[in-house]
């Protein structure tokens, strides 16, 4: 898990340093947070217990898994909304271009 996290992190940094358009600064920060987090809790699994107690939850790992699922679903939902809006916009552009053929 730690090795995997390290590989993904290194890949993200390499893409950013090469200046690849797909790797923005925001994506780099997000990648760091996610993969460093996964790596840290893989190395120090008991740390989840401390954080969970601090937050006032019960079983530590389940708490983080639960939070993780909630975050993933929230992000997925947002992405679906964005995709739907984009698809509608594309269709509108294609429609307007097609209808302009009538005027010609």
């Amino acid at each position, binding site marked *: 898990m730690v090795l995997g996290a390290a590989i993904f992190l290194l890949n993200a940094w390499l893409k950013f340093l090469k200046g690849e358009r797909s790797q923005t600064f925001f994506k780099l920060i997000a990648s760091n947070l996610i993969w460093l987090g996964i790596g840290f809790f893989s190395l120090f699994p008991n740390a989840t217990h401390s954080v969970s107690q601090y937050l006032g939850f019960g079983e530590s790992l389940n708490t983080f898994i639960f939070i993780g699922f909630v975050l993933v679903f929230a992000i997925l939902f947002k992405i679906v909304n964005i995709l739907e809006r984009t698809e509608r916009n*594309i*269709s509108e552009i294609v429609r307007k271009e097609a209808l302009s053929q009538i005027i010609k």
Partner: protein
Amino acid sequence: MEKLSKKIFIIIPAFNEATVISAVLREIKVAGYQNIIVIDDGSDDDTCAKAQQEVGVVALKHFLNRGKGAAAKTGIEAAKMLGAEVVVTIDGDGQHNPADIAKMLELIRQGNDVVLGSRLQNPQGMPLWKIVANHFGNFCTWAIYGLWVTDSQSGFRAYSKKAIKSIETKTDRYEYDSEVIREIHRNKLKFTETPIEVRYTKYSMSKVHKMNLKNGLKTLIKMAISG
């Protein structure tokens, strides 16, 4: 109906139908309808060019494939621009018989806002798996959109001016047909169903981009999301 003949538009969404589109257009013209709009939904072949060769046909082309629903919507918008009072949508693969248009128009004349062509009211020649799939599609359409019809997936429909103005759809692909059912329910449009003939030819059954299990599942998911 003669008074309205100049205002009746036949809309044909078409995707890669170069093989049959000319024959479909001629058959519609022989049936007595001259205002025809073909929307080529980003075909790879020369569907649009073939349609343009037919005299009097308005042939428009989507520069990207957006789906049957998007093409139908473009066609209806085009018909509105050209002053349509009644619109009939019909598939471009020759499965529908233009002879059925007359009875749909008569039902519009009798005061209906939407006439839905129903294959299940006349399932002769319809493969069994399609009948089963249709029933399932009808059930899902009822469960999600609240209106029971006998053929929620038929593209052979007629719309009055009121229906053309009030129906607002957002979906682009096969889920469009079900979304129209939702709009009928939402706008409390007066609708009826009529049996239509469907011709299952070797050509139409061999088409790659048609409703099958995979597309059906995708349609169901999109219906659930668009709610």
